[in-house]
């Protein structure tokens, strides 16, 4: 038996062009046997195109796709050992549930008795007992989805490709199906390549996530890596909510950096940065804190402009003096801050992530802007306090 580290799908420098526009650029990806890999990205990022190239519906303009170590460029979809679950289910409307599920086995000329047995087994697995004779038109979206999954899985593919399979379902059903799919995958041990634009879905289900943007794979890693250690500004903003701040390193003391932002100064914990380096820092809303009194090392000031109730947390929107808006997640028990209150924004220096370093040193521009805006802010602030 092969171990889990075996690569089952390998993409080497794969590119795809439609009418001269590159939708997938120099994509290199290794999918390991038995893993649940998600291609995550906004619409138009090339994730579905990538999936279609693996399935064989679309041909790579350049580069190679290997399944189990073999180049599959010349293989048609029906000759590849992969199956697809389509976004719109694509069930055959003239066939009932049983016939839909049996389609692939009939093509493989599996004996009738065995087909019957395996179809029954599949129907049980996806919990569709009693619906064997129904036509797709007589089923709900969730049921159709189960048929589509069973129809693909019955062929025991090496890899199952899923193209936003839960996109058309309502939220509650989607959450339920997410877990079911995950459990199914763990039970069967089949490699899943899953395409979605829903970052929450990707985080819930995947062993690894490949985040794509504009045809480029920006990062690949476990949900924890992608969420807590995003490598690029795009990944930080697309996966989970985050506040991205542009800044430069003012001073370095060991692993502690003193940074300067347009809206003030702050500190953060990160090794390996030089003085005067440009960086983007990402702070999740749950890691931002607010205070009415000054906090040591932090001089970022802003004004509360909105509270958004979101059930377990309250999202507070703070506008900084440079106009940038930050989202802060606060719990109902915390000190109440009214809209219009001026606050200091700070964070635990270890909870801020540096997501991108910029080569050009344009810090002086930021500093100038910062100084000007700070002055304006002070003037505005003193004006309002005088009125009161």
């Amino acid at each position, binding site marked *: 038996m092969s171990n889990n580290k075996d690569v089952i799908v390998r993409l080497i420098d794969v590119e795809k062009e439609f009418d001269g526009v590159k939708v997938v650029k120099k994509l290199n990806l290794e999918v390991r046997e038995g893993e649940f890999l998600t291609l995550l990205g906004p619409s138009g990022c090339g994730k579905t195109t990538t999936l279609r190239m693996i399935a064989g519906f679309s041909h790579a303009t350049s580069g190679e796709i290997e399944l189990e170590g073999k180049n599959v460029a010349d293989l048609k979809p029906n000759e590849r050992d992969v199956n697809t679950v*389509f976004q*719109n289910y*694509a069930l055959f409307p*003239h066939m009932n549930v049983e016939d839909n599920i049996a389609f692939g086995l009939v093509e493989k000329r599996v004996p009738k008795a065995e087909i019957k047995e395996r179809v029954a087994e599949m129907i049980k697995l996806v919990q569709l007992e009693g619906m064997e004779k129904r*036509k797709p038109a007589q089923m709900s979206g969730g049921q159709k989805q189960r048929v589509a999954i069973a129809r693909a899985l019955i062929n025991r593919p090496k890899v199952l490709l899923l193209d936003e399979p839960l996109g058309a379902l309502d939220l509650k059903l989607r959450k339920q199906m997410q877990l079911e799919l995950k459990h199914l995958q763990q039970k069967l041990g089949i490699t899943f390549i899953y395409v979605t634009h829903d970052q929450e879905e990707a985080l819930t289900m995947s062993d690894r996530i490949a985040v794509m943007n504009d045809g480029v794979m920006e990062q690949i890693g476990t949900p924890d890596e992608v969420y807590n250690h995003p490598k690029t500004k795009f990944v930080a903003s697309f996966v989970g909510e985050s506040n991205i701040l542009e800044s430069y390193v003012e001073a370095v003391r060991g692993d502690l950096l003193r940074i300067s932002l347009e809206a003030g100064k702050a500190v953060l914990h990160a090794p390996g940065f030089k003085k005067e380096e440009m960086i983007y820092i990402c702070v999740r809303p749950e890691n931002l804190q607010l205070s009415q009194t000054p906090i040591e090392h932090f001089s970022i000031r802003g004004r509360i402009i909105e509270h958004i109730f979101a059930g377990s947390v309250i999202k507070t929107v703070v506008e900084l003096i440079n106009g940038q808006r930050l989202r802060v997640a606060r719990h109902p028990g915390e000190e109440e801050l009214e809209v219009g209150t001026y606050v200091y924004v700070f964070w635990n220096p270890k909870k801020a992530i540096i997501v991108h370093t910029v080569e050009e040193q344009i810090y002086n521009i930021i500093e100038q802007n910062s100084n000007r805006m700070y002055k304006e802010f002070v003037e505005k602030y003193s004006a309002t306090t005088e009125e009161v």
Partner: protein
Amino acid sequence: MRNRLRSSMAPITMIGPTTLWLILFLMIPLALVIGISFLTRNGFGGVLMIPSIDAYKELVSTEYLKVFASSFQLAFLTTIICLVVGYPFAYIIANSSERVKPFLVLLLMLPFWINSMIRIYGWNTILRSSGMVNNALISLGIIKFPLELLYTDGAVLLGMVYDLLPFTVLPIYTSIEKLDPSLLEAASDLGAGKVHKFVRVILPLTMPGVFAGSIQTFIPSLGLFYIADMMGGAKTMYIGNLIKNQFMSARNWPMGAALAIVLIAVTLVLMKLYTRVGSLDDMV
């Protein structure tokens, strides 16, 4: 008050013209035909006002049954040939590139804008002894004497297929066009090659179109008389010609009317079948 009046008048003003039209040009003529079929023949044209079912009695004679048989045979052959020729035709149009498609559909529709009788007359000039085909074959030295192409059963069949082909192609084209491409992808994904994809997915899903096309070809081909007249030289008798002759030359109006009634009845049964399959289509 006025509003209520207006609302009660509205349905009448809307369906009124249609109803009037149907009464004047469908119900009354139909009633006349039914009436005439139950009257007695007047040898000098017209009818005598004496009730009779002679026409229907005569109808079951072997001679008339033969005419029915040959008509059904012709209609059946026409439909089959139209399907065999029309399906690939429709398939090619539906799968052609978006740039060429409108042009191909236009070509298909073009004949509808020219009177069918004129188009059939066109075939006459192509097929007759001194027509284009014979002239070409003779000048190429392939034959010495003109072939008898026109005024044969084959010529009638050709004319029928030519005239009715668009009626077969259009519904099939529509049903192929409606096919969800992801179903075809799913079929190949599940291991179906080209032939199986066609037999197991494309053909069954376009059957409603095939059926609609067949009906739309079969029904008119039962009644068309001028193609048999112009291209068959009236050698073989078909229902359409028979009806025409009963009124125009044989001066047996009740017979012609009775034949027409039978033809209408057959058509109605076929239409009923068609609408039933049409509603099955929604189930798919």
